């Protein structure tokens, strides 16, 4: 670890609490001369935590995009429909009477087969074509998976229940009167998200295939020159993205039911990606947390001032503003330029 990394971490450790405290005081100040504006610190922290946990769910979806973009430079428009397809498939197997763990394993295999199919039928014939053509082909995959999933498993709203507790919890009773209210489901989701990210990081950094993946992301010609087969790497990446989609699908599906709108949460991943950078896994996480928390805070505290729901567009506004100042994202791959 070098000096700049330590400086970075130090910067975040001081910067983040500072920004949060400043936001709190700003809201408090607003509340003091605007009677329609309600503010209390415990409530503020509650909303913040709920937002952060929600953000983890966004990160899960964004992660799938990052994997594929990193390895092949393709913006995979179909990521959202992969989430839907995975969730539908999993529910389908559970409805056949399988335990959810077995259904999970089978669905993961199905996602690997989908990855192989996409590589054979779409990517391989289109290799060496401009990126925009590959992007268009992922739009095709989006509609195919979307329709095919519903043909296979039906199009009505399904319930996915793998036994994650949904009861609200109270924590920190000593610190605040009455404690803080936290949704235990969101907490579980956060743990799952963290576990997934750690697993991916280990895979990328300490395995032969993971190293090859990073090599391909850096310079695919050079990777080919030393015998790394791009086809294998693509299949691995799309499979990883498929499994990430499956996890995201389970989390979102158990929260909101499995239905077409799952495919649209991919749109929420866009501002996350703009914020975090398209090529950075930590970026997808931090981006998700920022979008999730700021969206919740804005909705609860600023919403009343605008007289309505601002949650739907706030994230995009934030991303747009951000784009003006730092187009490569917070963690976008540094372009190495030697001086």
């Amino acid at each position: 670890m070098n000096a700049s990394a330590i400086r970075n971490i130090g910067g975040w450790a001081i910067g983040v609490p500072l920004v949060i405290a400043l936001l709190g005081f700003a809201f408090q100040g607003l509340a003091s001369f605007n009677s329609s504006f309600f503010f209390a610190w415990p409530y503020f922290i509650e909303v913040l935590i709920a937002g952060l946990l929600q953000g983890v769910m966004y990160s899960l979806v964004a992660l799938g995009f990052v994997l594929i973009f990193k390895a092949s430079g393709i913006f995979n428009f179909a990521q959202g429909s992969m989430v839907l397809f995975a969730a539908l498939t999993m529910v389908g197997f559970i409805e056949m009477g399988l335990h959810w763990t077995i259904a999970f394993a089978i669905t993961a295999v199905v996602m690997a087969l989908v990855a192989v199919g996409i590589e054979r039928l779409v990517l391989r014939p289109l290799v060496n074509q401009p990126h925009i053509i590959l992007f268009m082909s992922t739009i095709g995959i989006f509609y195919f998976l979307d329709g095919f999933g519903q043909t296979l498993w039906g199009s009505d709203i399904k319930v996915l229940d793998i036994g994650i507790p949904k009861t609200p919890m109270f924590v920190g009773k000593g610190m605040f009167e009455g404690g803080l209210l936290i949704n235990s489901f969101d907490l579980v989701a956060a743990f799952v998200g963290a576990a997934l990210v750690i697993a991916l990081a280990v895979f990328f950094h300490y395995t032969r295939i993971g190293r090859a993946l990073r090599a391909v992301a850096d310079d695919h010609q050079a990777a080919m020159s030393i015998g790394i087969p791009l086809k294998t790497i693509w299949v691995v990446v799309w499979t990883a993205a498929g499994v990430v989609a499956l996890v995201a699908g389970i989390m979102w599906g158990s929260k909101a039911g499995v239905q077409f709108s799952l495919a649209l949460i991919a749109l929420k991943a866009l501002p996350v990606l703009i914020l975090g950078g398209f090529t950075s896994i930590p970026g997808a996480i931090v981006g998700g947390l920022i979008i999730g928390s700021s969206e919740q805070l804005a909705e609860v505290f600023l919403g009343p001032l605008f007289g309505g729901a601002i949650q739907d567009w706030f994230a995009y506004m934030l991303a747009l503003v951000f784009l003006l100042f730092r187009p490569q994202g917070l963690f976008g791959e540094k372009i190495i330029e030697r001086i």
Partner: protein
Amino acid sequence: MTEAAAALNPAPSKLILTVNNIEVIYDHVILVLKGVSLEVPEGGIVALLGANGAGKSTTLKSISNLLRAERGEVTKGSIHFEGNQVDRLTPNDLVKQGVVQVMEGRHCFEHLTIEDNLLTGAYTRKDGRTAVQQDLDMVYNYFPRLRERRLSLAGYTSGGEQQMCAIGRALMSRPKMILLDEPSMGLAPQLVEEIFEIVKKLNETEGVSFLLAEQNTNVALRYADYGYILENGRVVLDGEAATLRDNEDVKEFYLGVSSAGRKSFRDVKHYKRRKRWLA
């Protein structure tokens, strides 16, 4: 081979690579190689010389088959490695068989450390961790500078270190033959010398054969055994390195020992080429 040449070479060594009259077309229309033939003996160092755009890189890429990724295609002729026809193989297969290319401009993985770069070179190997670790040590012994910088991101190392990294990475695949494209590019003369010394040492101690493309004719002909001169997608002259070094025209056009005002090798040597192709 003529009788005279055979006499010069009393025990003709086994050929590891033969390229037989290949023609290469890019994008279905751009004809770049117009019939190139060359041979590399087992354990030899052969230089492929020529000016910008002569087709050196294209020749190397048609052997390693990186050509296809650039929309290029070998449309005529054949390439044999250790007696087997290899023109239809993928780069992955070729590396497994023992041919690896070090691309022009080095192409290290910038965001990987030097050590990770070297380890990616062992991707195709199946002989286990300890063997790979041993070879990592071997590479570090040839390139002590890489050991010092093993934890730096390759993108932040110097041009010379990157060239060493690229060669070391290729070595990690345990190749029988390395196709080395312009190792001297952009390096200070002393560093060029250092790199060629290591190439020579690898050739002698590890028994790796080299086909190297170079614009730096002077250095290349001092280290190689044999040379081919390429112009406009054709071999216009070939011979023992020592012979080429003493050839008046090579001196004039490629070694910069100029006496008259002739513009191109081709102006004078037209008759020779004609003879070659009619033969």
